[in-house]
C-alpha cells in the first residue's frame, strides 16, 4: 500500500505544481506544459518498456519520433494531385524496386552460402538497383519538387483525419524497428546504444532532405486537428454562451455595454485557446491511461515476468528455453511503436512538421533522463519522470532567472557578469537536467518510484 501512496502523492504534487503555474503565469502555459508532459509520458513509457522491462538501450528515440511525425504528414495532408500526375507512378515504381531489392538480397543470402562470392554478388545487385532507381526516380523527384514549390512541392498525404496517424506512426516505427532490430540487436549493449543513435541520425537526415516526401527542411505547416479551431470557437454561439455563463458574476459588474462587449470578446479569445488545449489534454491523457493500463497488465503477466527474467539473467532465461533474441526483437518493436505514436501526437499538437527540430539532446537524451529519474521498470515512474523533467525543462528558465536575481542583487544592473548570466538563462536547464540525472544515478539509482516486483503467494 505504501508504494501506491507514493505514486498518488507524487502525482498530486505534480498537479499542484501545474496549477501553481496556471495561477502565477497563465493557464495557457500550464496547459501546454501539461500536454507536452503527456506526450513525453507516452515516449518514456515506450523507452521504459525497452530499457526497464528488457534492458535494451535504445538511443534512437529521435528517429522514431520523426517517423511518427512523418506519418502524421502522410496521413493527414491532402494529396497534391498535380505532383502525383507528374511523378507519382515513377515514385511508386521506385518504392517497388526497393522492396524487390530487399527481397532479392534475402533470397540470395538464403540460397547461397556465406562466401566472398555472395558478398560481391550482393554488392553488384545493390549497385545495379541503385542506378536503376535513380534513373527512374531522379526526373520524377525534380518534377514533383517543382510543383508549386512555395507551398507544395511534395506528394502530399492521404487526406485522412490526423488521428489515424497515431496508429500509422506506430506502424511505421514498428516496421523500421523490425529492420533495426534484425540488424543491431545482436550487438553488445553499448554498441546497440551507439548504433541506434547513428541510425536515428540517418532517419532524420532522410526526413530532412527528401523534399518530395515531406518537403524536407521547408516544413509542413497548417495540418489538420482533431480538436476544434480557435476561430470557429470564437464564432460559435454555444461557446460564447458558455463563457458568458462561467464569467457571469464578473460581467455583471460592468455596466457599460461597449466595455462589457469588449471584455466578453477578450474572455472568449482566452477561453478558446484554453478550450482547444483542454481538448488535446483529454485526448492525450486517454492515450496515456490506456497505455498505462496495458503496460501494467503486461508487466505482471507471465510475459512480463519472462522479460524481467531475460533482463536480469539472460543465460538462465536461455537455459529455461526462452527465445531471448525473439523476445528482444518483440520488445524493441513494441517500445519503438509507442514512441512512433508519440511522435505523431506531437506533430498533431504542434500542427506543423519541422524536421530541423529533431535533435538528439531533446528527443533522445531528455526522454532517457525522464525514464531514469522517474524509475526504470516502473510505468508510473516513467510517467512521473516525464512530468517532472518536462516541467523543469520549461520552468528552469524562470526559476534560474529568479535565483540569479536574488544571488546577484548586490551587483549593479549594468554589471557585465550579471548581464551575461541573465542572457544565458535558457541554458541553465541543461545543467539542472545533468545534475539531476547524476544525483539520481548516485543516490537513488532505481529512480524516484522504483520498480516493485509483486510475488504472488501460493
Amino acid at each position, binding site marked *: 500500500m505504501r508504494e501506491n501512496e507514493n505514486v498518488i502523492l507524487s502525482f498530486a504534487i505534480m498537479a499542484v505544481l501545474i496549477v501553481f503555474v496556471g495561477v502565477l503565469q497563465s493557464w495557457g502555459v500550464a496547459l501546454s506544459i501539461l500536454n507536452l508532459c503527456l506526450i513525453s509520458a507516452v515516449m518514456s513509457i515506450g523507452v521504459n518498456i525497452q530499457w526497464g522491462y528488457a534492458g535494451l538501450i535504445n538511443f534512437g528515440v529521435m528517429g522514431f519520433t520523426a517517423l511518427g511525425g512523418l506519418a502524421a504528414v502522410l496521413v493527414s495532408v491532402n494529396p497534391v494531385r498535380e505532383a502525383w500526375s507528374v511523378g507519382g507512378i515513377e515514385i511508386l515504381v521506385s518504392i517497388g524496386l526497393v522492396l524487390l531489392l530487399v527481397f532479392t538480397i534475402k533470397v540470395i543470402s538464403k540460397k547461397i552460402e556465406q562466401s566472398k562470392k555472395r558478398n560481391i554478388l550482393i554488392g553488384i545487385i545493390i549497385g545495379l538497383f541503385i542506378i536503376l532507381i535513380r534513373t527512374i526516380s531522379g526526373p520524377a523527384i525534380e518534377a514533383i519538387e517543382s510543383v508549386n514549390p512555395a507551398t507544395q512541392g511534395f506528394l502530399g498525404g492521404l487526406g485522412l483525419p490526423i488521428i489515424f496517424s497515431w496508429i500509422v506512426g506506430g506502424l511505421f516505427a514498428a516496421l523500421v524497428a523490425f529492420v533495426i532490430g534484425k*540488424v543491431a540487436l545482436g550487438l553488445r549493449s553499448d554498441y546497440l*546504444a551507439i548504433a541506434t543513435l*547513428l*541510425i536515428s541520425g540517418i532517419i532524420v*537526415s532522410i526526413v*530532412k532532405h527528401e523534399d518530395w516526401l515531406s518537403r524536407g527542411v521547408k516544413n509542413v505547416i497548417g495540418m489538420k486537428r482533431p480538436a476544434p479551431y480557435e476561430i470557429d470557437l470564437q464564432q460559435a454561439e454555444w461557446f460564447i454562451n458558455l463563457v458568458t455563463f462561467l464569467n457571469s458574476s464578473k460581467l455583471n459588474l460592468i455596466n457599460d455595454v461597449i466595455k462589457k462587449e469588449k471584455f466578453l470578446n477578450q474572455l472568449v479569445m482566452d477561453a478558446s485557446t484554453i478550450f482547444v488545449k483542454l481538448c488535446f489534454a483529454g485526448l492525450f491523457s486517454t492515450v496515456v491511461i490506456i497505455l498505462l493500463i496495458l503496460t501494467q497488465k503486461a508487466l505482471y503477466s507471465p510475459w512480463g515476468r519472462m522479460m524481467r527474467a531475460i533482463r536480469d539473467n539472460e543465460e538462465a532465461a536461455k537455459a529455461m528455453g526462452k527465445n531471448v533474441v525473439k523476445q528482444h526483437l518483440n520488445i524493441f518493436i513494441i517500445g519503438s511503436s509507442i514512441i512512433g505514436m508519440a511522435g505523431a501526437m506531437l506533430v498533431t499538437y504542434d500542427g506543423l512538421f519541422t524536421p530541423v527540430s529533431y535533435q538528439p539532446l531533446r528527443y533522445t537524451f531528455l526522454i532517457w533522463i525522464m525514464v531514469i529519474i522517474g524509475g526504470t521498470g516502473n510505468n508510473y515512474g516513467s510517467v512521473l519522470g516525464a512530468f517532472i523533467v518536462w516541467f523543469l525543462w520549461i520552468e528552469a528558465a524562470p526559476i534560474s532567472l529568479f535565483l540569479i536575481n536574488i544571488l546577484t542583487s548586490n551587483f549593479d544592473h549594468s554589471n557585465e557578469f550579471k548581464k551575461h548570466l541573465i542572457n544565458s538563462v535558457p541554458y541553465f536547464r541543461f*545543467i539542472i537536467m*545533468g*545534475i539531476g540525472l547524476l544525483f539520481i544515478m548516485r543516490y537513488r539509482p532505481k529512480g524516484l518510484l522504483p520498480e516493485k516486483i509483486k510475488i504472488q503467494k501460493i
Partner: protein
Amino acid sequence: MDFLNAIVLIANFVIVPALTYGSQLALGAIGVTLIYGVLRFANFAYGDLMAFGTMISILITWKFQSMGITFGFLPTALLALPFAVVVTIIVSLIFDKFIFEYYRIKKSPGVTLIVVSLGLMFVLNGIVRIVIGTGDKQFFDGQKFLIKANEFKELTGLNEGLAIKSTQLITLITTVIIALMLFWFLEKTKTGKSMRAYSNNEDLALLSGIDPSRVVMITWIIASILATVAGTLYGLDKSFKPFTYFNNLLPIFAAAIVGGIGNPIGAFFGGFLVAFSEIMITYAYKKVLIYLLPESLEPTSLMQLLSTDYKFAVSFSILVIVLLFRPNGIFKGKVL
C-alpha cells in the same frame, strides 16, 4: 595536362579536406577508444569535453590577443593550447573523482556508466553554452593561406587551383606528432605498457602490481589532451559552435568502432576512413570526369553518389556495415 588538372582538382576538394577532417576525427576517436579500453564504457560526454577544452583555449586566446601577444604568422590559439590542456585535464580529473570513481569502485556495468556520462554531457553542454554562448566564435588569427588557388594557378600554369589553409597543415602536423608520441608512449614506456596490460586483463594487471588509480588518471590526462587539441584544431579550421561538437561525437564514435573499439591504432585509421568516405561519396565528380574522359563521353549529371546533405549518414552507414560484417571492427579491438 588534363590528367594533372584532374589530380589537382581532387587534391583540392577531396584529399586536403579529408586529411584535415580525418586528423580531427582520429584524435577524438583515439580519446574515445582509450577511455573505452581502460574505463570500459562509451563516453557520451566526450564531444562536450572537446567543446569545453576548445572553449577554454578560445578564452585564453582572446586574453592573449587583448594583451597583444601573438604567435607571428601562426595562430595565437596554438600558444593558448597548452594552458587549455592543463585546465581541461584538471576539470576531467575532478569529474572523474566526483562522478566516475564511485561506479568504478562499485564495478557497475558499462550501461550504467553510459547513462552517467549522459548526465555529464548535459552539465558540460550547459556550462559551455552559459560561458560562451551558442553563436559562431572566430578565434583564428595569423596567416590564413599557405598557398592560394590563384597563386597555385600562376605558379604551375594549370587550370585548377590548389588552396591550402595554414590550419590544415597545422592540423596534420600536430596530429602526426601527437599520434606518434602516443604510440611511442603506449609501446615503449613502462606506464604505457601498464595501461595496455590493464586494458587487456584487469585482474592480471592488478596481480602484477599495477596501480589502477594511476592508470585511470593517465588515461583521463591523455583523453583530455586529445579532446582539447582535436577540438581546438577543428575550431581553428572551421569555426567554434558548441552544437557542432556534439554532432562530431557521432562520426568519432563511428571511427572508434570501425577501427575496433579499444584499439588506438585502429581508431587513428578509422578517423581517416570515415573522413575520406564521407567526402569522397558526397563529392560531385563531374568536373574530374570532364578532364579525364574524351568529349563524347562527358557526363551530364553531377556524378555524385549521394548529395552532401547525407554527409553524416555516410559515416553512420559505414559503421552499420562494419558492425554487421566485422563486429569487432576492421582492426581487432579491446586491446590497447
